[in-house]
């Protein structure tokens, strides 16, 4: 083995760098080669920043800045100056990005003004200046929406989720208020009607007050009262009902789950609406439990009020039922109209106690939505040695929550949140607990890359794959689990084309897999696991990381995994990796495999089944081919026996003796002819259709008469039961027509 290779292999196995062959990477500011093009994010048009719409609709609560500009330009940039408008508008979009990256915030409208001012200042004051103003004015007119701008930073996950959550809660609140106001109005109407019908309601004084001052003297209210008092209803309005309705009104009026319609400012703390936003699982859980009795009381009041309004409340039946109401808590359907709780926690700050509370929330089916923000998934394990164990713990909470089966789980890195906006909304609308596990990528201490790139890299490298698990989407994994947001989902690692210029100034392109090692290499805490190989020492024993992962190491390795990186000047560097990281990459790949299986990609059960079926099919084909070969020369021996005539499933009519009288009851048109002749002999069934109730209750003559008068001729008199009945010969003749 050559000396160079030997040094490489030694580093691979031990992580120690002999200085004459390898360089440390700490000071080189390297980043994965595939990131070479993403140095200046403000120059790129991508999903961020986002506009958190001030007036969200049912499905639209956030828009990307670039999307907003595209829509506006589609409307505004028309005609001969379309190109000019587009150019100017996109410059403004870029300027807004620059402002945001510099830390500016606020609503789009304000930033627009600021950015436009800067552009105008930078440009000259000639014609170009006025055309810029014109372009911007026209584009601005096409943007109808406004809202706070949010960049992909540490605050984004909580900001975006809270924004979506508020939109959902607002919608719920409106629906609930509308319902509540209706109940209060209708209940008050009942009490009012009761009063108007009472003696006091019909007193001269009240009557006078209801007419008003204008024509107060034109009526004799005493006389009117005397007359009305005479017509007072006899049936008393039960006192218990009056009391019940008053109590209902009190409960409905005192509810604190949603803000009431009136001005809330003056309310005391006891009557102020509850807050449902928490930053600790324990607090949320405690609040939920504390408010439960009030919630049950309100839910009960609503159910009783509905019955009261409908006039259906019956003390005999409902009193006992409502006494037990909510004894076992409420089910998700009953809880659905009430607000959901939102808890935003940061994984790094969570103690063991808080973890336990989180699991409690998730496993108890409560309507609590939890944002678990993870800023660092590469946290070094406490025992050193480059394992990713601590970060792994946070990463695995989402997987564990899926195991609970009835939790809506969304895992995503910040960079992908905009793509998951509808799924976030779905999670927030889900009736039950939801967990949003989000990696923000914002760990400035560990990397020079902006959070957007870090989080995108985590997702791309399968270190933090994006998925959702929606228990309400269907009965099985295929319907519930969604993994397709990850790029090239059927591969171990996504592969991208990468082009560079070599020493001979020739364009070289190759496909690079983006592996966990690429992601980890962006983190300076792991620099010691990497070593730069000077260009003159590059050799054939250096193979890409993904390739080395597929090799099983037996004995001394002769190939060393390496990756391409670029330095601050975008010069390509080759870096070799030690075995520790390779081990992590393998672990990451295995975890990705199990996610793939859940998502139906390379599912081992399905593949096994497929192989079995395929084998069976091949055997069958083989067999058929053999039999065909054997029978081919023989003349066809007639087609197989003609298929048996399918016996139609015809309903059998009941066997009837022609001697017994009967009625084709289902055809009876309820015309009363037969029952008028003899109501004992003929009677109506449940559906008011005639049948022979008692053949002995009348004479054969009546039977025949009924048959004759039957409008639809469905009475069959049969044979006479009494041979001594007079005039039988004639009756039998008349009956013949109805047999």
């Amino acid at each position: 083995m050559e000396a160079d290779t030997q040094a490489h292999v030694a580093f691979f196995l031990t992580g120690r760098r002999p200085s004459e062959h390898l360089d440390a990477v700490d000071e080189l500011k390297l980043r994965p080669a595939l990131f070479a093009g993403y140095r200046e994010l403000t120059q790129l048009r991508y999903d961020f920043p986002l506009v958190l719409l001030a007036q969200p609709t049912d499905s639209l609560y956030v828009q990307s800045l670039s999307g907003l500009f595209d829509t506006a330009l589609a409307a505004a940039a028309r005609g001969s100056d379309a190109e000019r408008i587009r150019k100017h508008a996109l410059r403004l979009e870029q300027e807004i990005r620059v402002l945001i990256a510099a830390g500016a915030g606020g609503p789009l409208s304000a930033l627009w003004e600021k950015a436009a001012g800067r552009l105008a200042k930078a440009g000259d004051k000639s014609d170009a200046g006025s055309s810029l103003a014109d372009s911007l004015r026209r584009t601005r007119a096409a943007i109808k929406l406004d809202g706070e701008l949010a960049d992909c930073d540490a605050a984004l996950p909580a900001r975006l989720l809270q924004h979506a959550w508020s939109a959902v809660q607002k919608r719920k609140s409106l629906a609930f208020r509308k319902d509540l106001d209706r109940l209060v109005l209708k209940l008050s109407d009942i009490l009012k009607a009761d009063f108007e019908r009472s003696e006091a309601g019909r007193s001269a004084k009240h009557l006078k007050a209801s007419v008003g001052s204008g024509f107060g003297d034109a009526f004799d209210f005493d006389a009117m009262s005397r007359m009305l008092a005479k017509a007072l209803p006899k049936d008393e309005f039960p006192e218990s009902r009056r009391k019940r309705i008053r109590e209902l009104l009190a409960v409905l009026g005192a509810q604190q789950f949603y803000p009431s319609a009136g001005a809330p400012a003056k309310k005391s703390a006891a009557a102020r609406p509850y807050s449902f936003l928490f930053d600790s699982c324990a607090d949320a859980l405690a609040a939920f439990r504390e408010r439960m009795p009030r919630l049950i009381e309100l839910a009960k009041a609503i159910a009783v009020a509905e019955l009261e309004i409908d006039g259906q409340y019956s003390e005999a039946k409902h009193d006992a039922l409502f006494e037990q109401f909510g004894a076992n808590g409420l089910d998700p359907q009953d809880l659905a109209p009430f607000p959901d709780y939102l808890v935003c926690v940061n994984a790094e700050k969570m103690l063991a106690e808080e973890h336990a509370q989180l699991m409690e929330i998730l496993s108890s089916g409560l309507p609590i939505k939890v944002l678990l923000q993870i800023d660092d998934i590469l946290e070094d394990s406490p025992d050193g040695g480059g394992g990713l164990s601590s970060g792994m713990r946070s990463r695995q909470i989402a997987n564990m929550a899926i195991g609970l089966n009835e939790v809506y789980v969304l895992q995503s890195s910040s960079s992908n949140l905009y793509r998951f906006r509808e799924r976030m909304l779905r999670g927030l609308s889900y009736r039950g607990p939801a967990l949003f596990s989000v990696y923000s990528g914002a760990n400035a201490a560990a990397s020079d890359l902006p959070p957007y790139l870090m989080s995108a890299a985590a997702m791309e490298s399968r270190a933090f794959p994006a998925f959702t698990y929606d228990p309400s989407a269907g009965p099985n994994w295929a319907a519930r689990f969604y993994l397709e947001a990850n790029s090239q989902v059927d591969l171990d690692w996504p592969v991208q084309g990468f082009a560079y210029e070599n020493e001979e100034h020739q364009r070289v392109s190759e496909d690079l897999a983006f592996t966990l090692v690429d992601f980890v290499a962006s983190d300076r805490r792991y620099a010691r696991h990497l070593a730069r190989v000077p260009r003159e020492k590059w050799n054939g024993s250096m193979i890409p990381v993904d390739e080395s992962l597929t090799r099983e190491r037996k004995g001394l390795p002769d190939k060393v995994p390496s990756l391409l990186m670029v330095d601050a000047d975008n010069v390509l560097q080759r870096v070799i990796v030690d075995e520790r990281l390779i081990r992590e990459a393998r672990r990451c790949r295995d975890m990705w495999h199990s996610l793939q299986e859940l998502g139906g990609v390379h599912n081992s059960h399905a593949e096994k089944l497929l192989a079995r079926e395929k084998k069976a099919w091949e055997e069958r084909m083989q067999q058929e081919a053999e039999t065909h070969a054997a029978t081919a020369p023989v003349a066809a021996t007639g087609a197989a026996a003609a298929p048996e005539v399918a016996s139609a499933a015809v309903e059998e009519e009941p066997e009837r003796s022609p001697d017994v009288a009967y009625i084709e009851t289902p055809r009876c048109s309820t015309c009363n002819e037969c029952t008028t002749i003899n109501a004992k002999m003929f009677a109506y069934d449940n559906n008011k259709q005639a049948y022979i109730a008692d053949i002995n209750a009348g004479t054969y003559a009546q039977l025949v008469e009924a048959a004759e008068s039957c409008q639809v001729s469905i009475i069959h008199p049969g044979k006479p039961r009494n041979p001594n009945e007079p005039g039988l010969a004639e009756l039998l003749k008349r009956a013949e027509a109805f047999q």
Partner: protein
Amino acid sequence: MNMMSDMKSATSCLLEMCDEHFELEDYQSGVPRWCTGCGDNAILAAVQRLCRDEALRPEKTVFVSGIGCSSRFPHYMKTYGFHGIHGRALPVAEGVKMARPDLTVFVNTGDGDCTSIGAAHWIHAIRYNMNLTVFLHDNQIYGLTKKQASPTSPIGTKSNTTPRGSYLEALNPLTVTLGVQNVSFVAQAADWIPEVLFDIVKAAYHHKGLSFVRIIQRCPEWLPKALDPWMHDPNKVLLLNHANGLQASAGLSRVYKNQIEHDPLNIDRAREIASNTDIIPVGILYNNPKVPCYEDLRHLDKLRTPDLTRAGLNAELDKYTVWPQGAEQKVA
């Protein structure tokens, strides 16, 4: 947990257990004064059966009628009823529905009531398409006033007003209804086929919008033999089947062999079928649940609170300023 949105909450399940159950007798009121053998009895039986099967609460159900034999219908239902004035059953019913959309409103009207004096209301009720179930009891004669020709009497019908036989072709209530804008449900039943009558009554009840059911009905008193050709020859009845309509049972199919498939959304075909008077089509001719109901179009999406009413009244009254006596001079 799965498909939770479709699941009922425990509360609503418990309340359902407390719901009342009704028997046919709960809807019967008095002994009908109709002649023995009258087809109205069959309609009454079918409607009472519907009320029981659907557990319609009597205090939430209204039958509105006009004048005629059929219009005595509300008297025999132990529900709310309104035995109205001649030809005006539909406007009354529309008023009831507008004010109390929570009520189930049925209309019973006869061929004279609906197609003669009430014809204008009939046309416009179809166009308004309010959620009502309308039964046209069509016996092709004025029975209550003892035999005068009605608009649906077949040409040549001898009656007290047409002793030499009626001169005009009968009006076809089906084609007229199917020709009105916004029509949403048209069916035809015959009182002597109670099974289909019930199925149609049920489908009409479940349709949201105005369901117009013409029921061809015998009058044993004044036109005793008029429908015999159709009653005695099942082949002169055409049953309409469709997956989205009705399906004739096996028992019925043995008697009525003349059946076709007819898509109730196909209005052109419905008009064609309805035009045939030699054969009586029985079934759902047209059913379009997507036609909007007038009460929904006019529904105020606000609570009708006293404040709202007061504000509306004030706004209305403010259009005209009424000066107190003597004030005009001062202003002038």
